[in-house]
């Protein structure tokens, strides 16, 4: 059941990228991102109110932890541009590839305070398969 829900998350992400991309095409890149944030803020505020959660900003939180939202804006911006030029499946596949490579680099060197996990060379095979898959998607268009 939970496994089915994990695929459901994937469907939600595909829908989100599509809706955001269409909104960007109709209202422009900047206005669409503004709209997306206003509606997202309303949604999360409702959840906080329903769950009766309070926000307690302790003083010892490093400032860079607050930059996630700004990176989110850039992510939506890039996704919207890619969606309108590549379609949703290629945008998501390339994103997945970028995610895997970044995760491997961060794990291997133990960057950003993460624990170090040396890259297992056997996994090169998997990455080559993923790369071939993306190559076929781009060339076969």
């Amino acid at each position, binding site marked *: 059941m939970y496994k089915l829900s994990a695929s459901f998350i*994937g469907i939600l992400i595909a829908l989100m990228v599509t*809706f955001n991309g269409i909104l960007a095409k109709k209202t422009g890149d900047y206005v669409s991102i503004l709209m997306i944030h206003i509606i997202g803020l309303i949604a999360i505020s409702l959840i906080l109110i329903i769950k009766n959660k*309070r926000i307690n900003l302790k003083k010892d939180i490093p400032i860079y932890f607050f930059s996630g939202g700004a990176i989110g804006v850039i992510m939506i911006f890039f996704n919207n541009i890619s969606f309108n030029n590549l379609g949703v499946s290629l945008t998501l596949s390339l994103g997945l590839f970028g995610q895997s490579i970044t995760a491997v680099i961060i794990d291997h060197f133990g960057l950003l305070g993460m624990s170090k996990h040396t890259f297992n060379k056997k996994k090169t095979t998997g*990455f080559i398969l993923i790369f*071939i898959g993306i190559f076929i998607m781009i060339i076969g268009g």
Partner: protein
Amino acid sequence: MIYIILAFITGGLVILSMILNSGLAKRIGVFQGTFINFIVGLSFISLALLTTNNSMDFSFNNLSTVPFWAYLGGAIGVLVVATTNTIIPKIPTIYSTLLIFIGQLLAASIIDYFTGHLVSKWKIIGGLFIVSGLLYNSYIDKSQKDQNQLLDLP
């Protein structure tokens, strides 16, 4: 080509924001962290709108031509955060990436078909290659984990 690079970089940014967001979530809670993210994002995009000479059309006539569901992306984003935090801890990581991607690919192919982007057999074949690559690597991860457990390594 530039769009291919942009989509690839976005994947890297996803990981970066995941690390930052989970760091914030650990300290103040998942939903509180998401709230802060939207506040910071909103301030950031407002600043970008004010500082660039971007022509904006907030007129009702312009905004009402957009079908209402196209505005739901932000709310779906919040739903993704909420579902992810409920489900992911309950299934092995081996499956989560794989299943999320299969869900994405399936939905994406259907959406591409309906939004006029081409769905060729090559996109499906390419997708199967990606799934097999993910499957292979999760198998390697799993066998390494099992080995570590035998040797009593962390």
